[in-house]
């Protein structure tokens, strides 16, 4: 299938023309949601907080909001905030990474009803411009693919993640980019990962990043080495922490790992990267989307419904029961591997077919249902 997407001025491609309404402070969340609901193609980006943050915590939040607004799938980024000082930190940094950028403050506009009218009018003009754009052929090398798993069960590590891993290898071999994350789930798989690091500094960075989450848990009194696999993992057949982590890592394929990215940061060049972000799905896919992923391949076992607003999230499942009972949320049903003994290659082809369709404009279940949410991880306290 020929891949087609929108070519941006800076050479990147976008597979959608989202109009992102970004609430830089949480007082603007309600009006941001109302604006997005009023304009087709608009999505709300409404993390909480945005004021009273300091140091690295503030830097991470701003970097992530900027990253979301700068994602190549975004045609227009409208930043809304209580006042424009906080908002300008975000809108100025997005700058011309989005084709259109604007900033509105609730105070400056004289309240949310006036802001709403002005914003909806602006977004409608942006939508008319975006609708004029035409797709052109692109290559796998143009794509940045996010890799995620959540609501995992035994089938995740056996079917869905290995099938995604075949895709990851194809993308990397074609000169594209892929980002996997959840370092906490890599605990036990350090040897397998570091063997693939492109140099010593990447190796050390991978180890330090996994160790970081081990230490966060220890400070809270939890030794993850002793609690993994958990009782339900053991009942499901996982015996060692090495085995459990490899089930997660298998979505990252087998190719070399070029680097470790900060939460929400974009890679400097093509290749496979580990992103430093916590495992819970919403926080993690928010970080991936801010890192510039065009789409996210999301393996689920028992079922996870959430997607990233600006990075279409493809749900992939190998559990026959879940594919039936959770069908509303599943884009790719791989359960024939288990029910019919279909080979992994055919599962990989099914994932590739859906990736191509979604790149070319087909709607994911998350998009169709509006199951989109953002959560930016906090790493400090507000004052």
């Amino acid at each position: 299938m020929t891949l087609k997407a929108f070519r941006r001025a800076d050479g990147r491609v976008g597979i959608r023309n989202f109009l992102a309404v970004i609430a830089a402070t949480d007082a603007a969340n309600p009006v941001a949601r109302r604006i997005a609901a009023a304009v087709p193609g608009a999505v709300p980006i409404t993390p909480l907080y945005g004021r009273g943050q300091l140091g690295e915590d503030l830097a991470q939040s701003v970097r992530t909001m900027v990253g979301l607004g700068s994602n190549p799938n975004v045609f227009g980024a409208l930043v809304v905030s209580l006042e424009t000082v906080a908002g300008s930190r975000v809108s100025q940094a997005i700058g011309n990474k989005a084709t259109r950028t604007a900033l509105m403050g609730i105070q400056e506009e004289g309240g949310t009803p006036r802001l709403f009218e002005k914003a909806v009018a602006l977004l409608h003009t942006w939508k008319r411009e975006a609708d004029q754009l035409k797709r052109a052929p692109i290559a796998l090398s143009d794509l940045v693919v996010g890799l995620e798993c959540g609501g995992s069960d035994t089938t995740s590590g056996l079917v869905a993640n290995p099938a995604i891993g075949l895709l990851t290898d194809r993308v990397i071999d074609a000169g594209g980019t892929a980002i996997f994350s959840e370092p906490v789930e890599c605990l036990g798989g350090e040897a397998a990962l570091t063997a693939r690091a492109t140099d010593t500094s990447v190796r050390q960075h991978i180890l330090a990043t996994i160790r970081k989450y081990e230490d966060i848990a220890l400070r809270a009194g939890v030794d993850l080495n002793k609690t993994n696999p958990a009782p339900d993992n053991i009942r499901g057949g996982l015996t060692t922490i090495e085995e459990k982590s490899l089930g997660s890592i298998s979505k990252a394929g087998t190719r070399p790992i070029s680097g470790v990215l900060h939460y929400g940061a974009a890679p400097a060049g093509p290749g496979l990267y580990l992103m430093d972000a916590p495992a819970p799905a919403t926080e993690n896919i928010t970080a991936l989307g801010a890192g510039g992923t065009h789409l996210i391949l999301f393996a689920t076992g028992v079922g996870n419904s959430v997607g990233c607003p600006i990075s279409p999230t493809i749900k992939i499942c190998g559990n026959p029961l879940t594919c039936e009972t959770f069908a509303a949320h599943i884009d790719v049903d791989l359960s024939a591997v288990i029910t019919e003994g279909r080979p992994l290659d055919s599962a990989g082809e099914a994932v590739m077919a859906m990736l191509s369709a979604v790149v070319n404009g087909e709607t994911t279940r998350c998009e169709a249902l509006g199951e989109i949410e953002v959560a930016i991880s906090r790493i400090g306290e507000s004052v």
Partner: protein
Amino acid sequence: MNRDIAPKVWIIADADNVGTVVGNEAPGRATLPIIGALTGSIETQEPVPHGHKIALKPLPGGADVVKYGVVIGRLVRPVAAGEHVHIHNLESLRGRGDR
């Protein structure tokens, strides 16, 4: 599995020396097809639930157990081909300080 699915043994990498039962719980002394990275069939020594591992060949005590093409642990005693491999006979290498 809450549906009626004939059990099979799923192999992820061709270097693996264990396979994972998928589908219904496999009864003991049942011949299951091998699918995935290897082919063939294997007879179970005992009942093995969905998601659990069996040895693909006889392995001595102390042998590395290989899944995903890498070592996931070490056997604490010998196992026969088709025997259930889990917490009663397989231990993590991390407990020994291996990293």
